[in-house]
Structure formats: structure tokens, C-alpha cells
């Protein structure tokens, strides 16, 4: 340790700059998260489908043929898992795996705030209608509607070096 004290190192200082999360990054991070949720978390739900439709053309008729009870359970479970996934990660870590990959994060937020900002993911009316507002706010204000409502933001922390 003493050896280093002999030198007066003029090392560059790391600085941070916070900017709003860019839309393309947010979209990519969101898609990555959805992919992870679909493959890993929602996979067990396939047990409920006795004979899943082959191809998208049959999907609509298949879904409408399901019993209302089953549809409600699948919708509610999907919504619950999505909201919990995003809320738990954002509350405990400040980012989801998808956000981490693209370099995004949130400010420190409480769990209720995290839940509110992700309510638009519940595929049950009227919450699913929030998706339209979310897009509008995101494009116009770079902040989703539920983010504005919950007083939270998705940000990028850019680091750069400078000499002092």
C-alpha cells in the first residue's frame, strides 16, 4: 500500500450522466423480457391446453372455443406473473434481465410503485386498455403513462471518463 502512496496518480475520474431510456432500447429490453417470461415462466401453463392449435390461423378459433373459466384463469395467471416478474426485478434490483442486457434501469422504487408502473401488462379489461396510453405517453414524453402515474422513470446511466 505504501508503495502506491509515493505516486501522485492523475487518474481519470468516472462521471455519470443520467438520461431518459431510449425507446429502441426499451422496446428491445421489453421483448427480451417477454421472451424469457414466455419460455421459462409461462411454459407450465401449456399443461392446461389439451390440444394447442397448430399455426396462427387456428389460434383465434381455438382460444374462443376454450371455456370462459379457463380463459379467465390463464389471463389472470399470465397477468400476475408478468406484473410480479417486472415488479420484483425492478424493486429489488432496479432492472429486469432484459433491461440489464440493453443497459437500462429505474430509479430506486418501492414495490407498490413497481406494481403500479406494470399494471398495463394485465391482459384483462380495462387494464389492458392502458397499453394505448402507455404507447402515446412513451412516444410523446419518453415516459410511459403508468410511469408518470407512479412517479417513476426508466433511465440510462451513461458513464464517461475525464481528467480532473
Amino acid at each position, binding site marked *: 500500500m505504501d508503495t502506491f502512496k509515493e505516486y501522485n496518480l492523475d487518474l481519470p475520474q468516472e462521471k455519470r450522466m443520467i438520461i431518459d431510456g431510449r425507446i429502441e432500447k426499451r422496446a428491445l429490453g421489453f421483448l427480451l423480457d417477454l421472451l424469457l417470461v414466455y419460455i421459462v415462466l409461462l411454459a407450465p401453463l401449456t399443461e392446461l391446453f389439451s390440444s394447442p392449435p397448430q399455426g396462427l390461423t387456428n389460434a383465434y378459433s381455438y382460444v374462443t372455443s376454450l*371455456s370462459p373459466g379457463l380463459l379467465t384463469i390463464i389471463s389472470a*395467471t399470465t397477468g400476475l406473473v408478468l406484473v410480479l416478474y417486472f415488479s420484483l426485478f425492478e424493486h429489488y434490483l432496479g432492472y429486469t434481465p432484459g433491461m440489464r442486457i440493453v443497459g437500462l434501469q429505474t430509479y430506486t422504487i418501492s414495490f407498490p410503485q413497481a406494481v403500479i408502473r406494470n399494471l398495463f401488462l394485465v391482459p384483462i379489461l380495462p387494464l389492458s386498455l392502458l397499453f394505448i396510453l402507455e404507447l402515446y405517453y412513451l412516444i410523446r414524453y419518453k415516459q410511459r403513462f403508468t410511469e408518470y402515474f407512479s412517479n417513476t422513470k426508466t433511465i440510462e446511466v451513461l458513464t464517461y471518463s475525464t481528467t480532473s
Partner: protein
Amino acid sequence: MARQKKSTRKSSQQQEIPVSIKPRRNSLFTTIAIIVFLLLLVSLISGCTSLLLPESKTGNVALIPLYGVISPASSSGTFEQETVDSGAVIEMIREADANDQIGVIVIDINSGGGTPVASAEIARAVKDAEKPTIAWVRDLGASGAYWVASASDTIVAHELSTTGSIGVTGSYLEFSGLLDDYNVTYNRQVSGYYKDMGSPYKDMTPSEERIYKNMLDKMHELFIEDVAENRNMSVEQLRDLADGRVYLGIEAKENGLVDVLGSQQEVRSIAKEHIGEDVEFRDYKPQKNIFSIFPCLSKDFARNIGEGIGSQLGQERISSNQPRI
């Protein structure tokens, strides 16, 4: 005012958001914990949902499952073999027979048999049904399950289905030698000489063996007689086939134990011939109560995860422990 509001929203620095950022850290443990928690949650929900959902009330062909070991009572515990309750199956057959919307009853079989009485009871219920019945043998329809199948009007099996096994077994493990090795004595206290016949802690005497063998032979004879009657075969003809061996579907067809080789397509065509209209299956399932949920929580958890993820990754679904090709 609106413009002012818009301008105030443009910069994140001007917003009243608590500027506190969680430091980046090794988050592997938290990530795994959250994923595992959510996996548990989804598995529990999906594992038990199928039990709680009401049956579909449409369809003109009843599809009644006969999966697992046929017994007088069902069990679906974590470490127990899956069993099918004969009473529940009989109830479903009677309900389908009494239902005006149902034209044909299909027994969907994937079972290696079970207890003689339970198998015979289901076979009787199938035989008593007034509506046309079809036994659809999947991977396995042997022994007691074949007895049930034989009672139907038509048996459809795949070429590779395992069927037959017309015989009775009463084999059991005997520990008397092991007890001797450890100097443990079986203290026999009975009133009635044959009361502890079949006890695993002692050797069978020759007279006990005779009685036991006689009992199995009688069961076998009744089994043969009933199947022969169901299949319109002579007892002698069937006895040649009923040495307990299993037959592939293709062999069973050659020997007259199966009527049609095929699978769902063939079942549909036969059912269509009976009802004269397009076939829509109505799935029957045993009535479950709230207590049925608890065993399934642990039982279905791991299976659902493995099966679900496997199917998503394009692997074959795991549905049976039968040999697979």
C-alpha cells in the same frame, strides 16, 4: 398552461423523481430467487387449475379416461402410482349412457390393469351400457384394462399398443430368509390355520400354495370365460392366447383380440358411423374435491415445469413411462 406543462415534462432532471439509483451488483442470487418463486407460483396454479375447471358440456361422443392402475379407490399422492377409481369410471359410464346428447361412449385406455374386482366391475358397466361402446387402447391396455376393453363393442388399438396379458398374478416378496439372517423370529399367533396365508414373514406351506394357486386359477378361468364371451370366442380358443403374455396391437388383431388397428382417426370414423354426424368428443373426468388439490401441488409441480419447458423447446412431451421409440 398546457405548453408549460409539456415543457416541464421534457427533462428528467426537472421532474420531481427521487434520484436514487440502486448500485449495480452481482444480482445472480436475486434473479434466481425471483425466477424460482415465479416458477413455483405458475406451476401451482396450472397444476391445480385442471382439477377445478368444470367439464365441457358439449359433444356427442363421451371420452372416458382409464389411465393408471385400476383399483376400487383412487390415489394421486406424490409417491404413489397413479390409480383410477373403478367407482368413478362406472359413474361416468352410467352418466354418459343416460345423457341424451351422447351417442357413443369411448373408453380411452392407457392402463396395465389392476385389481380383479375393480376391473370386472368396470367391464360389467361397459357391457351394460345401452349405447355403442368403443375401447380405444393407447400405449397400454393389458390385463384388467384389456378385460374392460373386451366388454366394449369395438376395440381400437395402435399397431404398437401393448395389450393382452390375460392372466392373474399374486406374486409377493417373502422376507423369511432375511429375517433368519438377522435372527428375527416370526411369532405365529393365529386362530384358523390359513389365517396368515401369504404373510411375507414365513414360507408358504405346500397346502397353502395349493390353495393360493387354486384361487388364482379360478380368477384366471373367470377372466377367460368373461373375455371369451365378450369377444364371441370359444373358451378353448381364448385359453390358448391367455397364458399371460402381452401382444402388440398388430399381433392382437391377428389373434382376434382387437377389432381395428388405428388411433383417434379410426375411433372418430367408427363413432361417426354410429351417430351419423360429425364427432365432437366430450371429455369426462372424475369429480374432484378441494382435498384433491393438495397432493397435486407437489406432484404436478416438477412435472409441469419439465414438461412445459420441454414442450416449449420443441422436445417430445413426456406422458408415459412405457418404452418409447
